[in-house]
């Protein structure tokens, strides 16, 4: 049974946070802007200085090089960045099945980055991230720019990925209905701590 175990985590002015995320489960996280949700996800990906332990199964975050950790515990930020001219250049492995599941055809690989909408960037950003086959997904408002149809595709796709890889996810969002629908546990971040709202 795969488990992400967060023990006494302190970062910036937040914490201590204790949290366990089990395989195939989604943990929901909401809270006011500036409450530290994104910072929390960045900390889990070891992009921010912190104290306390973050352990995936028996693997402590600090025991492997940071880039290897980030391949396992992968962060999809609210705004994705793209540095080449076309979509295809950002992909090494391409699954047409995954593309189709998120409503794309193979043609999208030839698209130039400049013409991508923010919603397309979010969906393609997820596919790009999944090339590493991460074991934990940290999703920062991943459907904020998606319409209803694409939001549904996105949700189903993530659920299916977690099932297939027995991976887990932390989903940050503002839509309480959505978090309720998706997550096993739901938390609100406030005053530097996390409160269970189930």
């Amino acid at each position: 049974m795969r488990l992400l175990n967060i023990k006494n985590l302190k970062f910036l002015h937040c914490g201590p946070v204790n949290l366990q995320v089990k395989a195939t489960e989604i943990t929901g996280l909401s809270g006011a802007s500036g409450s530290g949700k994104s910072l929390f996800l960045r900390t889990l990906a070891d992009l921010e200085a912190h104290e306390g332990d973050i352990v995936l199964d028996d693997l402590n975050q600090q025991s492997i090089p940071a880039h290897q950790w980030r391949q396992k515990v992968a962060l999809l930020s609210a705004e994705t960045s793209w540095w080449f001219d076309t979509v295809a250049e950002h992909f090494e492995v391409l699954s047409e099945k995954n593309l189709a599941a998120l409503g794309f055809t193979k043609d999208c690989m030839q698209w130039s980055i400049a013409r991508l909408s923010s919603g397309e960037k979010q969906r393609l950003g997820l596919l790009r991230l999944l090339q590493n086959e991460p074991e934990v997904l940290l999703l920062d408002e991943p459907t904020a720019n998606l319409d209803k149809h694409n939001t549904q595709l996105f949700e189903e796709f993530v659920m299916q990925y977690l099932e297939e890889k027995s991976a887990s996810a932390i989903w940050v969002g503002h839509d309480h209905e959505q978090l309720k629908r998706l997550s096993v546990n739901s938390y609100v971040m406030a005053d530097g701590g996390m409160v269970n709202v189930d």
Partner: protein
Amino acid sequence: MEEWLMLIELSAFDLALAAILVLLLGVLSASMKLGITRQLYIAAARTTVQLLLVGLVLKSLFASTSMAFILIIAIIMISVAGWEILSRQKRKLKGWWGFGVSTGSLFVSSFLITLLCLFTIIQADPWYSPQYAIPLLGMLLGNTMTGIALGMDRLLQNAWQQRPVIEQRLMLGQTADESIADIKREAMRAGMIPIINSMAAAGLVSLPGMMTGQILAGAAPVEAVKYQILIMFMITAGTGLGVISVLWLISKRLFDERERLCFKRLLK
């Protein structure tokens, strides 16, 4: 001496004429709000004063035979060049790192190469003979500092502007080195363009000053050309080494031990 070799003396008026051109450039730049005027005037004033002063002492400098004295001069030259590199930067590393990186890279790129050249190629006796050591070091420093300043500026500016891209690449599990590789390549190119231009244009577009001076002063043209080629290669190797060491040191400094981008190590 043949007539064309006679030095035509420049009058104060001649110099004033050239100075007016620089002055006009400053006015033009100010009126177009291009913001380089102050720097331009200061540099022009400095070049006048510094060259006058060094012109006065150069003869006695070249007559000196004390190794310690020559070394002190060399250290002063390197420190000043390091300081100038730093002054050209829009973003700098905090504390002694900025000066340390630029001066350290000049040491590798200019001082060591000059030593190598003095010992193995020129073999003057003694090796620190000032009429070889000082101009050689000077030419190397003058040229490599341009390359290093450009490479450093490009690296820090681009890293600053492309912060989201660097962090995105880290999120995708790339190493710190991989995440900044493209920016480093850009910076290397920026640093090397001036010397590559000089080499490509030498003889066809530009007549390098040292060679021309030697020939005008009566040296055999082939000998002067050989010296010039030697200098060009030294400058190229020096610039390359200098830019590479700067890029290496700075990009190490931009990340912490957990491969996180550390902009708090830059001056605001």
